């Protein structure tokens, strides 16, 4: 019986002690990935974790911890503070008792192992003495807690029926904790606080969480990882792109530079004409806004111009800031000195504010024209409008800007499409609160993020966030967002188009001719449990087969000028390929079926580049 008791106590002692410090929402939620084969993997609460696209994520909420978080939340009212203090003391007492039980078990084991002598070794005697001192301190702690709580201390040391003294104290402490947590819950519920959990896929698509929102559940789909993720249409588009590149691209270096520079060239005309319209200074309208006298704002035409300018000036300032080096280079007549980073910054600024600029320029222009009509016949407002009359030369810049906007509207639409650089990543996560069903703390349940019911694809991100909200839905305590990246764990196949630089195996190095082709490769994504696995995943090696359109044939002409051999109009090369970084870097060897010649090639694929937002032709 005593042996059983000690096993029981030992298990109590082995239980991890609750941390004494309370972090708002820190340990309230635990996420576990459950794969399609049933394996369970805890999801780290910090950093970016990877999950398989056929997994579900179980969300376990520690209700006790939530209630602790409420009582320790910043700004908690005075009523919460005593509860928090009690919980801290109870935590400490429980921790002390667990330490004591472990000591007791260890001493008992040592004594038994020594043959239960009536005079044990000095060390064991000292250990027993230390244990007793800890028991004394613990008892004093119980007395202090009970005294502060207005309870008889005997509650914690009186053995209960069927339990030993130590078990009784454990139980009494646990009962007290439950009572205090119930107080915390009651306090939280009476304050109107609610528990909320939200999950979202990349691009702001909400994921339905059972019991926590009214978003519709998606259709259940398991993705076959051995089936290519790229659609035929996408492969076809990539292949067209590859054909174009095979014709045009001679060198792999400077792809990004080339892309940015080509975008800058397209943008140069717009920025140049904008600068010309505003007489070389995008901030020229700022003083006009300040110069409009308040007394004239009673006239609606003046007020309209003032308002429209108030909108337009910050937009121009944003473009001016983002594009300062580019605008300077345009003034000097050459974009040669603009770095890729400066060019990118300008592209982003124009992309972000271009559409706004066109709309605002038109609205401001119309308002200014209406004002000009009034200034021609000011009537009774002549005196009030006199200061505005003086601004007319400067206001003409607005009408010029309107004309500029009217002229460039169509080309802007094309340009904007061209400038659409992977803005997904920059998109801010937004949740809507109207479809959330928040819970009282007493009603908190666990839930699941089922990726199989989402429109996910590899590379998407899933964001999950718990929070405590007020009755009106406003946030009281917002937890950290857990970021998950959706990947294909294990073996998978990718098919993509690319460009190979083919060299015939003829014992001569080169020449390399560019050839479009299609590659099917097997890859493997390891669960990132260690550095080696993470490096392997980053390198993403693959092995597969390729189909190329090499151009190894040639028309042979003899000394008499007679054609003796033909250059086949169609050549198909088939062979093996190894890849690195997905399909990005490829090396392979194959056989040209029409020319009957072996070749090897080095090349790059377009799928990884496309996922990175790099396109080589608009609309592909």
């Amino acid at each position, binding site marked *: 019986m*005593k042996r059983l*008791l*000690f096993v029981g*106590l030992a298990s109590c002692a082995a239980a991890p002690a609750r941390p004494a410090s309370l972090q708002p929402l820190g340990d309230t939620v635990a996420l576990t990935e459950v794969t399609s084969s049933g394996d369970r993997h805890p999801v780290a609460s910090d950093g970016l974790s990877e999950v398989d696209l056929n997994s579900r994520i179980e969300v376990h909420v520690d209700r006790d911890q939530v209630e602790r978080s409420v009582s320790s939340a910043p700004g908690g009212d005075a009523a919460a503070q005593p509860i928090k203090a009690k919980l801290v003391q109870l935590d400490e007492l429980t921790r002390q008792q667990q330490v004591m039980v472990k000591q*007791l078990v260890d*001493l*008992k084991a040592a*004594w038994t192992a020594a043959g239960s*002598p*009536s*005079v*044990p070794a000095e060390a064991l*005697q000292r250990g*027993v*003495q230390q*244990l*007793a*001192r800890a*028991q*004394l301190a613990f*008892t004093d702690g119980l*007395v202090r807690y009970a005294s502060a709580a207005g309870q008889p*201390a*005997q509650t914690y*040391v*009186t*053995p209960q029926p069927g339990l*030993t*003294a*130590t*078990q009784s104290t454990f139980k009494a402490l646990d009962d007290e904790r439950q009572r205090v947590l119930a107080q915390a819950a009651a306090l939280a519920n009476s304050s109107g606080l609610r528990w909320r959990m939200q999950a979202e896929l990349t691009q702001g698509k909400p994921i339905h969480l059972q019991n926590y929102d009214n978003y519709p559940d998606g259709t259940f789909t398991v993705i076959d990882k051995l089936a290519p993720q790229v659609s035929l249409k996408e492969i076809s588009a990539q292949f067209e792109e590859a054909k174009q590149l095979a014709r045009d691209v001679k060198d792999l270096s400077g792809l990004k530079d080339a892309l940015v520079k080509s975008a800058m060239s397209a943008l140069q005309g717009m920025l140049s004409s904008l600068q010309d319209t505003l007489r070389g200074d995008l901030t020229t309208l700022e003083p006009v806004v300040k110069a409009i006298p308040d007394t004239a704002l009673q006239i609606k035409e003046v007020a309209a111009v003032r308002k429209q300018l108030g909108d337009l000036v910050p937009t121009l300032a944003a473009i001016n800031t983002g594009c300062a080096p580019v605008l300077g280079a345009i003034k000097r007549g050459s974009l040669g000195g603009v770095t890729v980073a400066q060019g990118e910054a300008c592209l982003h600024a124009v992309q972000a504010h271009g559409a706004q600029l066109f709309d605002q320029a038109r609205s401001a222009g119309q308002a200014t024209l209406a004002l000009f009509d009034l200034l021609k016949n000011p009537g009774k407002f002549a005196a009030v409008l006199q200061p505005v009359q003086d601004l007319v030369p400067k206001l003409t810049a607005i009408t010029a800007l309107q004309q500029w906007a009217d002229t460039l509207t169509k080309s802007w639409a094309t340009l904007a499409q061209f400038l659409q650089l992977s803005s997904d990543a920059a998109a801010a996560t937004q949740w809507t609160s109207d479809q959330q069903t928040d819970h009282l703390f007493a009603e908190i349940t666990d839930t699941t993020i089922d990726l199989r019911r989402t429109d996910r694809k590899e590379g998407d991100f899933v964001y999950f966030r718990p929070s405590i909200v007020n009755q009106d839905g406003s946030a009281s305590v917002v937890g950290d967002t857990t970021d998950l990246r959706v990947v294909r764990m294990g073996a998978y196949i990718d098919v993509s188009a690319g460009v190979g630089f083919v060299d015939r195996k003829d014992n001569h190095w080169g020449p390399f001719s560019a050839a479009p082709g299609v590659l099917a490769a097997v890859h493997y994504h390891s669960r990132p449990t260690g550095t080696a696995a993470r490096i392997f995943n980053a390198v993403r090696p693959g092995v597969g087969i390729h189909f190329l359109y090499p151009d190894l044939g040639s028309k042979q002409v003899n000394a008499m000028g007679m054609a003796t051999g033909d250059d086949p109009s169609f050549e198909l090369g088939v062979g093996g390929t190894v890849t690195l970084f997905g399909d990005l870097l490829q090396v392979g060897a194959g056989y040209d079926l029409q020319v009957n010649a072996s070749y090897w090639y080095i090349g790059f694929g377009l799928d990884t580049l496309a996922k990175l937002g790099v396109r080589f032709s608009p609309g592909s």
Partner: protein
Amino acid sequence: MLILPTTATTDGQARAQKLLQAVVDQRVHCTLVVPGDGDRPREIASRADRRAEDNPFRGVVLIPDPGVLAGNPQFKQLLDEHAAGAEAIALTIRFELSSTLAGDEALDFLALERAFAKAGAGEVAK
């Protein structure tokens, strides 16, 4: 809990002193001695035993007939404390007097727990 024989039994005193001598000689547990006969001493000893039951380093000795201790100088202090009104006497593992309890305290689980803990920690009464 160890209950010592009384003088009413054959060789009761000798056996009682021998049993208590073993307690003196051991260095494993501190001891709470409850002298006296009747319901109250039995209840005190029983309560003390509840506080000691899952701890092998605590022991309880009930002496229904304190007269069995007579004649042995080692046990004189126990008899003196009992005569002075002590209903429970806590002793360290070296059989040194740590504290005594009487009245309501002697039946109080908290007081019994503190007496055990102090004796276990080696606190000796001044």
